[in-house]
């Protein structure tokens, strides 16, 4: 079974006057999800997060009205087909009740299969990030439990005078014997399934891209020595890619000369409404949706950037973020960003602006959104303008009416540490490796 984390984003247009009707439904469903969280966990085993919200109409480039929308976004693990099937089987009536308010929902949708097909049709492309790759939901609690039980066991061993003198290998052996003798941890003895296939699957698009570029480069060189049309054509791919990139950059640079229109400061009341929802003790959610700055190049450049981000997704790292996604809507005129992160947004937003590297990376996406700091050559000048960035986030932040999280008690570091501990169980290691493993939090 695949353990790759993915995002699903479903969106439909809705009439503005019906937004309130949708909001009321989502509010009720949110209460339901909180009351029956156990049932959600049981029936949605592939789902880590669901953010479901309405998006009011917005204005793009001072004149184009972007429609009001309903957005349904999940972070899940494994197969998309299986995930959608779980969603419609458990949330079917609720999904239908919300989506049928949109004119895009066909009255002919009569059963769950139709609903699943509708959801598939309405999904959109996104760049997705997970901070705890390859961990399925069913491992979250049990990996926490086994680590915690083992360390409690070791605490009892501390009373033994010889314990501090034990070699790392001997302590590891004690741990493994202890685990073997606990019936409830029988699953751990089997070890972890090999993630190579999942890693290859994640890296495949990047591999194909690099291979195509490398092949083109080789063909280009060969075309100087051999007179085959195919070599000449293939040889053009890489230079054409570079030329297109350069031209896009120049076009973007011209667009960057447009006068910067800053966001208006947001009211205290708006901020209070947002932060009031951020009182979960470990992790919270943030949704930022902004029209792009004026100009076709912004839409094209952001689209290209999101695809490149997807290619290198396996290697990307954003501290304290469980999952995040970036996507474009309405012909690329709107940027949607959602993140599920540790602690509260006032702390989390600093992760973006407090490090020069990350501010620069974030500028690749956010500098295209209206009101965000003006840049030069995409990442120069203004990208780290902290107050404007923070103002932009708050100005475009939306209230998520429905939020479900499978895990609400463990931070990203907790999840990774628990996995690291489990990976070491019953695995052959050198003394130094065992020492490091035993230090796992």
């Amino acid at each position: 079974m695949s353990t790759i984390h993915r995002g699903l984003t479903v969106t439909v247009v809705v009439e503005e006057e019906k937004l309130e009707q949708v909001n009321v439904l989502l509010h009720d469903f949110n209460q339901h999800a909180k009351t029956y969280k156990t049932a959600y966990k049981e029936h949605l085993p592939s789902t880590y997060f669901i953010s479901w919200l309405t998006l009011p109409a917005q204005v793009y480039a001072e004149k184009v009205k972007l429609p009001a929308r309903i957005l349904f976004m999940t972070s899940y693990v494994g197969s998309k087909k299986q995930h959608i099937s779980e969603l419609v089987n458990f949330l079917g009536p609720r999904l239908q009740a919300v989506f049928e308010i949109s004119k895009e929902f066909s009255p002919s949708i009569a059963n769950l299969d139709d609903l699943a097909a509708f959801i598939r049709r309405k999904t959109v492309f996104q760049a997705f990030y997970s901070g705890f790759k390859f961990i399925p939901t069913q491992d979250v609690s049990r990996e926490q439990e086994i680590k915690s039980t083992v360390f409690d066991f070791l605490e009892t061993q501390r009373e033994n005078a010889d314990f501090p003198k034990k070699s790392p290998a001997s302590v590891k052996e004690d741990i493994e014997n202890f685990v073997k003798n606990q019936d409830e941890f029988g699953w751990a003895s089997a070890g972890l399934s090999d993630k190579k296939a999942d890693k290859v699957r994640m890296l495949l698009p990047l591999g194909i891209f690099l291979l195509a570029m490398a092949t083109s480069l080789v063909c280009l060189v060969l075309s100087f020595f051999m007179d085959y049309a195919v070599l000449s054509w293939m040889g053009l791919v890489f230079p054409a890619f570079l030329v297109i990139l350069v031209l896009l950059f120049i076009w973007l640079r011209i667009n960057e000369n447009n006068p910067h229109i800053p966001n208006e400061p947001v009211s205290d009341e708006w901020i209070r409404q947002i932060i009031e929802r951020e009182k979960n003790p470990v992790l919270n959610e943030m949704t930022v949706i902004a029209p792009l700055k004026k100009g076709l190049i912004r839409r094209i450049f952001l689209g290209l950037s999101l695809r490149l981000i997807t290619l290198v997704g396996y290697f990307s790292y954003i501290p304290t973020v469980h999952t995040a996604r970036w996507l474009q809507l309405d012909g690329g005129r709107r940027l949607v960003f959602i993140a599920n992160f540790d602690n509260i947004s006032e702390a989390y937003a600093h992760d973006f602006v407090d490090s020069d590297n990350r501010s620069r990376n974030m500028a690749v996406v956010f500098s295209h959104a209206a009101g965000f700091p003006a840049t030069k050559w995409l990442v120069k000048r203004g990208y780290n303008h902290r107050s404007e960035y923070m103002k932009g986030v708050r100005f475009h932040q939306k209230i998520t009416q429905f939020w479900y999280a499978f895990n609400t008690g463990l931070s990203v570091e907790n999840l990774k540490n628990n996995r690291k501990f489990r990976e070491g169980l019953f695995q052959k290691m050198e003394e130094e490796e065992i020492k490091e493993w035993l230090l796992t939090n």
Partner: protein
Amino acid sequence: MTLELNDMQGLLIRGFGNLLGAQYVLLRFTDAALGKKYISELLPLITPATDKPTDHAIQMAFTYSGFSFLKLPDEGLISFSREFREGMTEDHRQFILGDSGENAPNNWVWGNAAQEDIHLLLIIYSKDADTLAEKLLFEKARADQYGVVELHTLPTGLLQDHKEHFGFRDDISRPIIEELVENVEKKVGVTFPAGEFIMGYKNLYNEYAPAPYLSATHDQMNILPSSPDFADKKDFGKNGTYLVFRQMEQDVFGFWDYLKRQGKDTEETICLASKMVGRWPDGSPLTLTPDRADPSLSTANAFGFWDEDKAGLKCPIGAHIRRTNPRDHLVTERTQKDSSEMAAKHRMLRKGRPYGTPVLEPLEPKGIMELPRDNERRGLHFLCLVTDIRRQFEFVQNNWVNFHKFGGQDHDADPIIGNHYKSDKVVTDEFCIPEYPVKRKLKNIPNFTLIKGGSYFFFPGIRALKYLASHE
């Protein structure tokens, strides 16, 4: 950019350590016009940063409520930061600061906005206790004359060897303001641009620190300088800053009793306490001298964690000094550079003083551990100066001190100043000590410090004080 020292109150650049006596007086105006006259009379007595007084010094700071009472124009009032306007005891600020349970404002002695309205903080330093008593009497009479009500007077007392009440040397790591370094070649350690701590100057983001401002029409006498951010505005914040005040009561006997129960002997008890703090009682850092205290390192501050102690084997990742200033190592960061940049954005200029009589002099842990509990109240009047309350003070308090998941921990708030509790969803009363063969976990840690009062103040520059005393 040269600092305008003559327009700053002295506390911004010095702690008045030579003035051993100090008292914090919390006051409330009863009449706006009289209040302005009171400020006007006090103004020449305020010690500017250019002076190095040997006898006494007076400083003053205002709450939002105080500015509002003195009828600072609405435009100016609204331009203060939201957290200052809301105040420390507003619901969300309480949540951010972790002021719940035993630390909730309804258990405070002062500062709970629901119970009393503080307008002004007067800080009086004096060379000794006798002259301090004289000054206090004098200032009390002055306040009475202008209908300014004295709500609380909070005494202080410096402890021997720069210690705090638990017996550890304190206040070693202080940010150095770049513009104050006279000889750049002799510069030691990391320095910070003035804008991190003083308004009107550039901060680490190369922006002017956000400051309160007014339209020029409100400043007919042209007292205030121009705003660096808005051409048509006057800068009320220039050479001022926010002052955060928290009264932290320390349970000295509770601290050492708990640790005695965890340690086999006195030596291990002191070692565990030092692991919690991150320094030995004499101040020497565990990172540089992990096995025993080294008096020659008692003020050592030039060290990091990235190269020396990433796993926390010397100084635990959850130790107090590592949480309040992670220096060059944040567990969630992948490079030393990113860690250092992140940590630098959340520093504060600490200016507080202890209060209450020490349990013993000198404050040696071995001696403290042998003493029976007394009923004295003692602790720290924590004062810090920051240009951004949310980014600096509240961020550290929320994300590093009280967040129980800091650095990949499970249930650990700051062992010394964190709010320790257990609820259905959250446990924060543990402390993890990485060691071989396996980590050690201290559990059921009680609160060793309790918040007993607090408020956000604004600490104006001299021109802003003049404006305040004379505005229409």
